[in-house]
């Protein structure tokens, strides 16, 4: 893991980066938060895409956002639409899809659209953290 630019932002401790978690289920967000905070990431939660934008525009979060983990089922928006929605707002922030749909076709199509990973719930904590770490590494390589 590289040196983080967002160290100490929320908690005074060294942060690995800021991750936005979007899911309509509070307990799912709580699980993801729990998993990522253990690895030193800071987490911002939102229940849908609209709230996510609101949340991130608050303060300086927008500049600091490193990764989005999102479900792909949201009101008025699904699948590829969801990707385009975030892309428009944050073109360079990598995306991990975390969903309950074990759909190979959708996963393939999304990966072709450039998402960093397609994870199906229930995902093991280690696997989620590895996926997040990989997304951060790719980000560094691309020089975002």
């Amino acid at each position, binding site marked *: 893991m590289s040196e983080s630019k967002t160290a100490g932002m929320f908690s005074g401790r060294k942060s690995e980066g800021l991750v936005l978690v979007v899911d309509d*289920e509070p307990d*799912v967000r709580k*699980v993801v938060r729990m998993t990522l905070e253990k690895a030193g990431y800071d987490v911002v939660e939102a229940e849908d895409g609209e709230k996510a934008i609101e949340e991130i525009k608050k303060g300086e979060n927008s500049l600091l956002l490193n990764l989005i983990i999102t479900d792909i089922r949201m009101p008025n928006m*699904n699948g590829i639409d969801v990707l385009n929605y975030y892309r428009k707002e944050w073109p360079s922030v990598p995306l991990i899809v975390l969903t*309950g749909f074990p759909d190979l076709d959708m996963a393939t199509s999304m990966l072709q659209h450039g998402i960093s990973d397609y994870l199906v*719930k*229930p*995902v093991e904590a280690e696997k989620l953290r590895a996926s997040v770490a990989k997304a951060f590494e790719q980000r560094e390589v691309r020089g975002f």
Partner: protein
Amino acid sequence: MNNPDRTTVVILGAGKGGTALLELLTHLPGVAVAGIADQDASAPALSYARQLEIPITQDLLSLIRRPDIHLIVNVTGDPNIDGLVATHKHSETEVLGGAASKVLWDLVQHVSKIQSQLFQTEKLAGMGTFASGIAHDINNPLYILLAFSENILEETDIPVIHERARSIIEAGKRIQGICQNITRYARAAKDVDTTPVNVNAKLDEALKIARYATILQDLSIVRSFDEKVEVLANPNELFQVFVNLMTNAIHAMDGRGTLTLSSCCENGIGKISIADTGCGISTENLEKIFDPFFTTKSPEKGTGLGLHNVREIIKKYRGNLTVESQVGEGTTFIIELPKVSNSM
């Protein structure tokens, strides 16, 4: 009743054989059932006949003697009745009794068995449509359940452990609810009898299953229910009918649009409509949608038996199934079923 083109039939014997025969004969357009008789007032087919508004009597002779009857079907299995029929029937009236009626009854049973197997097969084949939706609904709570359980193993703070445990229980209950819904739907209709069915509750129950037909969640549901709509049917068959029509509606909208469910009572008829704002059905296809094996869906999404079965089920309860559709605007299916009469 005495349309010259129709064969007027009376049935003697209202046991199991009588019920099966009534079911079959009332389906046939060329047959009019003029009455059914059994000496036992509690014989099962008598109450069924009452629902179908077919005259019933305990006085067998009164039916045997009628001059306007083309055919007497005797399923009593009682040799004394054979004698009674032979002596008292009108000379023009034909009789189906003894071994012949036994063969007829066996055929009826056979057909009804095949029919119910067909319904069940179609239903189970259709379950594939719901697989993704069901998996999604289970995977979410399952994720919560597994992650919090692992966390509890390491967590030492008792209040946090308790909070996690509560979330785990809630997630477990959600999975339990999903499994109950699925098994209720998958259950074969033959395991239950015809009974008054609360239409509104059944529509809501069916919606829970039909929702699995889409992975999207931007469906608007409009429910417009009259307070109490009860019709007489096999509840599992009606469940299947509703799930089928709602699933079609959701597929027609590609998971996006408004699904309107309504129920009301009009002149002793329970009226149920299921309307979508989907792609609609072309006039050319509208004529074929009830034909067995007609489908515009890909093989994994439809067997082409769904609407055929829906119509067969509705017909069985002397109901009506109509459809209105506009290409590009949507489709409405309307079911009309006789209401449960209060006099019963």
